[in-house]
């Protein structure tokens, strides 16, 4: 680890897509540092590349050029198998539409990432219970996603994201499908995870009210960041 506080470092990052003959650059030479324990809100107009950036940070997508360093190690040049292992160990994902498995109970959904560890069945059960407890969903452990409200599903999804104890949580519009009150509850939970458990959180949102929960707001526009100072 080069720097104890530098969790992520993006160096001269570019991402281009070719559409027919045209090449569109989403980012061109982006540099950025994300510290351990940060809670960052990434804002920006639709199509500005927020999801693309999150995918690069999450080891889902690879840049066209430049480097993504996580704890001082490059992850942009890892193979698919290594990236999968890296994701399982280091990153928790939270989606706008929850993306729970409809056939599994809440507890089983939360247990999924633990299938990639070699924890015993007993240890897994304990972990699942703790994660559900943190998001306040223990009493719904046996429910299927279809039996839960949107906010409850998102809570289960957050439990799934933290159960394997990753360093970073990547959330793409986590409250985009929720009403204000429920959204606030979810955001409070994220804040709690950041403050109490020290999770680094990078959250994409187009909602200024949601962004206000973060410690730092970054505005993505035409492939560049504009930082908004916060008190």
């Amino acid at each position, binding site marked *: 680890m080069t720097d104890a506080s530098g969790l992520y470092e993006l160096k001269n990052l570019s991402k281009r897509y070719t559409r027919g003959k045209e090449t569109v650059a989403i980012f061109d030479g982006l540099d950025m540092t994300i510290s351990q324990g940060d809670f960052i809100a990434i804002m920006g107009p639709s199509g500005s590349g927020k*999801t693309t950036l999150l995918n690069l940070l999450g080891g889902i997508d690879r840049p066209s050029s430049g480097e993504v360093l996580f704890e001082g190690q490059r992850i942009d040049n890892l193979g698919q*198998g290594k990236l*999968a292992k890296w994701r399982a160990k280091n990153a928790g994902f939270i989606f706008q539409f929850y993306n729970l498995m409809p056939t599994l109970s809440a507890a089983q959904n939360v247990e*999924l*990432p633990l*299938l990639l560890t070699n924890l015993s069945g007993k240890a897994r059960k304990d972990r699942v219970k703790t994660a559900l407890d943190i998001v306040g969903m223990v009493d719904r452990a046996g429910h299927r996603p279809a039996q839960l409200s949107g906010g409850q599903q998102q809570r289960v999804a957050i439990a799934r994201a933290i159960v394997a104890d990753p360093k970073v949580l990547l959330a793409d519009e986590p409250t985009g499908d929720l009403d204000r009150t429920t959204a606030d509850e979810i955001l409070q939970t994220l804040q709690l995870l950041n403050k109490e458990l020290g999770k680094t959180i990078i959250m994409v949102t187009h909602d200024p009210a949601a962004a206000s929960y973060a410690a730092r707001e970054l505005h993505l526009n035409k492939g560049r960041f504009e930082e908004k100072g916060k008190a």
Partner: protein
Amino acid sequence: MNDATLIRKNLFRKRLRAILLMVSILIAFLIFGVLGALQNAFTMGSGTAAQERLVTVNRINFTVALPYAYWGRIEQVEGVRNAAPASWFGGYYQEPQNFVQSFAVDPATYLEAYPTEIVLPPEERAAFLEGRTCALVGRALANQYDWSTGDRIPLNSNIWQNTDGSQTWELDICGVFDDTEGTYPTNYLMLHYEYFNESLAFGRDSFHWITINTEDPALNDQVSGEIDALFANSSAETSTTTEAAFNEAFMEQFGNIGLILTWVIGAAFATILMIVGTTMVMAVNERTREIAVLKTLGFTAPRIFRMVLWESLLLSFLGGLIGLGLATLAATAASSALAGFLPSFGLSLTNIVTALALMAALGLVTGILPAYNAMQVRISEALGKI
């Protein structure tokens, strides 16, 4: 929870669809099992011993008789150790539908021809050889009509007429024979050729086939060539083949069961291959998003490939094993219903091993494409489309 839980839940997520697929696989394996068992009945007694025995019949057709004198001449052919003549009796018991497979044989040479296949106590053997009106009954046939040693039964023929004008021969059951290990049929009876021939109103002094044991199976080609050459250009030319080939030709009068089997099973499997294959592809396509989520969580592509493949294997084995189980029950029932016509039959070890191999093949073939598709799912694309 483990991967197996996920596989099972995925297979049964649409219960009706899973059940319908399973039923279609089940039917294919039911057909496979029943026809396979039936084929066993038809090919029974085609073991190595049958490969080593020869059978001489009329060249025109095995239902056309040969002159009695051929027996003696065949016995003289070099390399022939034993020659056993026999005639179709075409028997039935009391009612014409009570078909009884029955042959008129020369007792001594016939028993000599089947030293290991026909098993019976020495005193019953001696009694059968002695008594002119004796019949030797196979275990399956004796059980069917509840006959036992000492019984006197009237046996009717739908081919022959007795000199007294009737079509009935009175027979004493002098013995009941078993087979060595369930590989030789016991659903027929034998009566003395002499007793039968003497009382015939027509068609005396002829028989339908001669079973031959040679000194050495290596001589078989030579012996059969010599026998057929002996009667070439006579009024009754002969055709000599192995008993196995003869049995096969005999069974083919009921239709080429092997060919029917191949076609029916082939058609059934081609159909389920398409149905199950396309359904599996569709089922996995519907789950693209879930697969993308699993990948995001860190499930590797090979692991996802295996999970989908196991799902189709599970489907194939569930349907296949139930189908095979039902086939066993159906074969047992059919076997007792057809006891008069066919030796008792069931699924052989070969049938079962073949079925298991087919289940594995079906699972792999129908699973490989959806498994490959699942493995290829790209997270960013799949999660991008809602």
